[in-house]
């Protein structure tokens, strides 16, 4: 299986063959949602899941297919944090920085992760292995500090447990 960083578990990940250009795939995805009202978000989620990001190139295609202005499509893509403008690292680590996790040391965990990976929140390691991000609440507020590693939520984190999880990801990659 090809693992696409940031691909959501609820999406079927289909990776196009060498001949399917992005434009064709996007048209096919739009067609798959033809009967749905206000389908732009579901379509963008699928683009993000397949390609790992939403390329600028898809904006005019979506605009034409959905009868929207380019500005509208662009506006939607940039409004939501889920839609990336460029691919993420092979593993995406989102550390929860909301109040409940802060009450059990989230800020220290962020500082530790930044130091261990040598990057700041919002950045990707130079070798492209890990993207580190913040998130506000994963709904795991009684078992914090919590984080999401790709799609998997992990709880009761400590700096050493985070290190172990990152090392395990590195071995799998």
């Amino acid at each position, binding site marked *: 299986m090809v693992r696409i960083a940031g691909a*959501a*578990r*609820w999406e079927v990940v289909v990776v196009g063959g060498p001949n399917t250009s992005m434009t064709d795939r996007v048209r096919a995805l739009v067609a798959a949602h033809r009967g*749905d*009202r*206000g*389908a*732009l*978000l*579901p379509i*963008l*989620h699928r683009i993000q899941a397949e390609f790992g990001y939403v390329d600028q190139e898809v904006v005019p295609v979506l605009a034409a297919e959905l009868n929207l202005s380019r500005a*509208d499509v662009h*506006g*939607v893509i940039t*409004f*939501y*944090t*889920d*839609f990336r403008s460029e691919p993420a690292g092979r593993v995406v680590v989102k550390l929860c920085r*909301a*109040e*409940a*996790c*802060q*009450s*059990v040391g989230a800020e220290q965990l962020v500082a530790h992760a930044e130091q261990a990976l040598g990057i700041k929140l919002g950045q990707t390691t130079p070798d492209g292995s890990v993207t580190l991000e913040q*998130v*506000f*609440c*994963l*709904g*795991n*507020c*009684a*078992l*914090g500090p*919590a984080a*999401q590693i790709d*799609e*998997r*939520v*992990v*709880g*009761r984190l400590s700096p050493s447990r985070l290190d172990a999880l990152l090392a395990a990801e590195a071995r799998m990659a």
Partner: protein
Amino acid sequence: MTAPVTVYVPCDSAALSVGADLVAAELEAAGRPIRVVRNGSRGMLWLEPLVEVVTDRGRIGYGPVEPERVGDLVAAGLLDGADHELCQGVVDQLPWLADQTRICFARVGITDPLSPEDYLAHGGMAGLRRALARSGGDVVAEVTESGLRGRGGAGFPAGIKWKTVADTPGPDKFVCCNADEGDSGTFADRMLMEGDPFTLVEGMTIAGYAVGAQEGYIYIRSEYPDAVRTMRKAIEIARAQGWLGGDVLGSGVRFDLHVRVGAGAYICGEETAMLESLEGKRGMVRAKPPIPAITGLFGKPTVVNNVLTLASVPAILADGAPAYQALGVERSRGTQVFQLAGNIARGGVFETAFGLSLRDLVERYGGATRTGRPIRAVQVGGPLGAYVPESGLDLPLEYEAFASAGAMLGHGGIVVFDDTVDMAAMARFAMEFCAEESCGKCTPCRVGAVRGVEVIDRIVAGEDPDGNLALLGDLCELMTDGSLCAMGGLTPMPVRSALLHFPDDFTARH
């Protein structure tokens, strides 16, 4: 040969976050024939992963079970319900559970979430059947009489909202479930969707029938992939069971549901921003009026309710409004699903009638802080809720009592902090969060929050503290009075409560 022992291991994502999948795999590999059922969580999250074994005495619980300990536990007789240091006894008899009044969460943790047989065996569909036997108007009246108020934060009476939608003519109406649950310290919507999704399906179908809507949307935040998956499967199963579709329970009534996934924007929990997002647009808050009940999704009359509001409806219809109304105090009727979170020894879901004191919940049931240090502050109602100091914990958990204390109950999330918390930092965070998540439509919120961060930084740095404190007060007033929605309008609540109760934290430290 003896029948295989039934063992429950939760599939709730909080349980998964601490290794429940591995525990299930270890149990299956332990050598004895067993039947593993993946249930929702009982809500005693400090015990997760909580393994339950079915015995003659009832379901015996073990927790927290680390995957590495499964082998030892099985050797020590876990599959026979034997005693062990991790053995909690008969789960239903634990005071933490026995003292609750579970209406909304009645089945969560007990059943297999996706088993229609379990659902029916535990009272599912009784509410919908009773609703369908009556007129839509009667159903609305029953919900109104129950006193049920919106559980998403604002506490608006559900029946009155439904009546507005029912009375607005039009062939197309919608029921939208707000499952954006962005507040820190809240996870009950998620646990309900992962642990008993058919209840939400049933509640939304009752709402649809009551107001004359044939379609519903559940807007779930993208941070909840497990809930998305479970809800989607539940909808498919419900269609196959004839619980959804063109002929609901053979009544001739049509109702169907769709799941839509958010994309990482807190503001999409605000109902009009959610509607915009459902329409495929940016999550910009709409000016009210018009209200969604009259001009909602795609301009049609729309019920927007929180997960817990809708999930409370089946029981109200099944057991009647008086039974629900009999619980609670004053104008807060029925039960609220409280969520104990943050720095808490025993965190989780506690459903109880309104009126219990915050102190009882946090200290008696929650066991105070996880670190064992003194409680300093408790934030109730999410990031827009007030910080209550330790001395204020005797407040009864009830909408109006909180409002008169300058606080709010919100979605029932309770986040505990110990004495190491820096309340100026928390006030700054409230402003930072607002700046990050503002939809940008109005200036007091968009600009005010950014200024708020800067002003707090200056106060803490000791720059003209008096002048800057006055400025912060003005800023809070401007945001409260001038913001279009409660994002900008309520962000001052945590800030002001921190200033009021913890002024020393705002003086310069060198």
